[in-house]
């Protein structure tokens, strides 16, 4: 499973990207479960954000959802945080 996150906007307006390929990873099952929950609850088009809020695009294999601060589910927040940190 390939998990990609793109974060845009924010006060600084600086884009960040991260990508994690889970195949061969010992924690792949955990990643899969988290990614499934994160994309299950997001819309397929970018939601309206708030001024200076981050906007996120999460792509899990061929599925893409969008979300924006501060309206992230806990799973989305955990996923984007981990992918941007570990897959930068």
């Amino acid at each position: 499973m390939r998990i990609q996150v793109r974060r845009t906007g924010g006060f600084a307006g600086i884009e960040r990207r991260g990508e994690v390929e889970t195949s061969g990873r010992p924690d792949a099952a955990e990643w899969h479960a988290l990614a499934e929950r994160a994309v299950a609850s997001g819309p397929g088009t970018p939601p309206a954000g708030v001024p200076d809020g981050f906007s996120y695009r999460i792509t899990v294999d061929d599925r893409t959802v969008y979300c924006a601060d501060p309206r992230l589910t806990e799973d989305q927040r955990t996923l984007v945080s981990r992918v941007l940190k570990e897959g930068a």
Partner: protein
Amino acid sequence: MTTHGGFQPVFCTVVPPHVLDRLARSDDPARSGPARRTLRRDGELRTLRQVTTEFRLAAEPDTRAPSDQPARTIHDAGHRTDLPGAVVRREGEPPGQDATVNRAYSGLGATFDLYLRVYGRHSIDGEGLPLVATVHYDEQYDNAFWNGEQMVFGDGDGEVFLDFTLPLDVIGHELTHGVTQHTANLTYYGQSGALNESVSDVFGSLIKQYALGQTAAEADWLIGAGLLAPGVTGSALRSMKAPGTAYDDDVLGKDPQPATMAGYVRTGRDNGGVHINSGIPNHAFYLAAAALGGHAWEKAGQIWYDVLTGGELAERALFADFAGLTVKAARERYGDGGDEFEAVRKAWEQVGVRIL
């Protein structure tokens, strides 16, 4: 709210937290009791309780004139993302041990002061709206934002960004998003979004200049000076004096802001480049203020404030619309053909915005 795919936005409360804070401070236990209990609730039952409180508020309209003192409340999110978080400092309480809380409190005060002393505006809405900020949002969070009701500040990751309450202009920037929301309500996309961003940078910078007593020539015209961690190659996040020169770093990349329309960036990202193309109206403001000299908040700031609050600026205004209104405001306030009119007209000409 159909665009949210059915999940409940966590921050979308019925009664704004600042209303609850005001109620909670009330001397009348019938008003303060429920509000205090509401403020203590965690997420799940929040909406139900607030609906009850709202009806109580509606029955007792507040007819007092707005105060010349701010009504600040600082909350601590405790590195989580529930807003507004625990109250850690209310208006009039002395500084505590947490420098971030103290900076947020002082920054809100400095912002309130500029709007009141210079432009005669009572808080965000002109009617004394309480000012609410949350600090320590999330973990190592590299951002600050306005959620429609309050300011939110992250601590930064410590490696690229430091605490977002450090620069006074960042606090002023966020609060000015509230002023814009209550006045011209510029749509946060494309050129109107870049104008929304620029207005926040303009008044954010003016709040810092006013607090420091600086003239246009003395000011650094930087947004976010002191926010970048040691080791990052850059002085700030944006420069109104020289857009595109604030940073050039291995990790951050290079400041992408254009100074003129020749460099206008067309993109769908960042709400249509609101933090990129804001460099153009930012630079126009700098040029007008520099040409006029003295304190930038007095003339250039007054002209921009007149446009923001004058009622003629459309929500989806383009740069040319905004420029035209600033020239008109300069003429109306300071006279046709005067220095102010000429400075504003030339500033837009220099950044390549044609006034129709």
